[in-house]
């Protein structure tokens, strides 16, 4: 199968490979896929809690070239977006941008799932933090 030039570009020069510490309350982590299916995608966002804007995003992917390209592209698109804007990213946009063939559509689905999972994780962490903070103040007083 021939790859599109955009897939090749992301494969050869992946953007934003790496990891943030999951201990950081402003980091949301999404881990989707399974090794036995041949794709695992870890996508992380770093959110500014004041503005709600995704300031940075990183990924690590075990999978084919299209899975790597889909995750790399997702991190590019996430940077500078609000949570709501990020939630609006659709896998079909990734398919279109990377010119993925039908057999590789699942790679883009996985990237969309990872975005949603990372946001959910961030929101859960923020909610847990807010739930625990007032209590600390009570204890302090």
């Amino acid at each position, binding site marked *: 199968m021939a*790859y599109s030039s955009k897939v*090749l570009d992301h*494969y050869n020069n*992946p953007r934003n*490979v790496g*990891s943030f510490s999951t201990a950081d309350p402003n980091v949301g982590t999404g*881990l*989707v*896929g*399974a*090794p*036995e*299916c*041949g*794709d*695992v*995608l*870890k996508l992380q966002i770093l959110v500014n809690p004041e503005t709600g804007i995704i300031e940075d995003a990183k990924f*690590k*992917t*075990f*999978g*084919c*070239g299209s*899975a*790597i390209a889909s995750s790399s592209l997702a991190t590019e698109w996430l940077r500078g977006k609000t949570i709501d804007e990020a939630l609006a990213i659709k896998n079909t946009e990734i398919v279109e941008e990377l010119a993925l063939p039908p*057999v590789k559509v*699942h790679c883009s*689905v*996985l990237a969309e*799932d990872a975005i949603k999972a990372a946001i959910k994780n961030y929101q859960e962490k923020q909610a847990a933090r807010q739930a625990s903070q007032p209590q600390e103040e009570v204890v302090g007083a």
Partner: protein
Amino acid sequence: MTLKLPIYMDNNATTRCDPRVVEAMLPYFTEKYGNAASRNHAFGWEAEAAVEEARAQVASIIGASAKEIVFTSGATESNNLALKGVASMYRKKGNHIITAVTEHKAVIDPCKRLERDGFQVTFLPVDRFGQVHPEQVAEAITPQTILVSIMAANNEIGTLNPIREIGRVCKEKGVLFHTDAVQAVGKVPIDVQEMGIDLLSLTAHKLYGPKGIGALYVRKKDPRVRLDPILDGGGHERGMRSGTLAVPLIVGFGKACDIAQREMPEEAARLLQLRERLREGIMSRLEETYINGHPTERLPGNINISFAYVEGEALMMGIKDVAVSSGSACTSASLEPSYVLRALGVGDELAHSSIRFGLGRFNTQEEVDFVIDQVVKAVTHLREMSPLYEMARSGIDLKSVQWAAH
């Protein structure tokens, strides 16, 4: 010396036609173009003589006599003819066939069709190296068994089966023995007499001959094997395979067998040395790499390695100047990882991570060294990008993780 890229290292898929083979074939396209079945003029006689010489060359490489060779379009046809031809001819004698789970689809699928047509087929499991044992065959044989079909060498993992021992079991029990020897002929010694083989499939393009021509060896005595043909027509090839003989291809096939037979000892030793250089070069520089198949009982030119935490298709993209193949689902139309690797008990995650390197006559040591470097670079690059590698490094047992399978 500068390397010519890309490098072909997929010789279990097909091989380059040897220039000596092409040269032998050429006159049969333009000058000696007669039909081998034309009995009444010089063009026909010339073609027939060439076919008979090639038939003897093909027979010789497997220790058969020329009369026992039936030319076909390739090994898929040979396997179909052997399985369906025997099943149909011996149906009154019994309806049971024995084969193995790691066979090529050209054996598995005809067997499945025979199952639909009322035959019973036993698909024997293999051990973790991919071998079928003669005791398994002996235990599976029933009074209804008419045929055992076990491959000589596996196309994906290169594992050699104990054909001689399996042949002996079949002989003792009076059951016909067919072997798909496509990968083995010309690479390791095969002798139908010594190994008790009654039917054997082979093809030209795996041994530096042209595509589109193969043969089925059909034993003529002790016992005389009979087949119902699949193709009806002019009664060529002793009535077993009608159709005008592809004279140029047959001439090339014969020449390829002749070269392979003469050069096999030297070539096998050279390929084994190159393969071990490749294996050691890769495995000494990369941790968590695993050989698929048998460590020693394998084709000299084949090595199949799984690279943990790296997906096979992505790895092939990373070594884009090298033509290899992978057991990863992403490289197959079915989106399932290799059924052969699964049959060995290789986990799906490692099946997705496998690469088959097939060395052949035209590979050089410089190419092997280049491939080692490319593979090490690509695997290192992809592991840095792999969440699985990161998790394993930080001490997480990947088997304990609850994955959301999709």
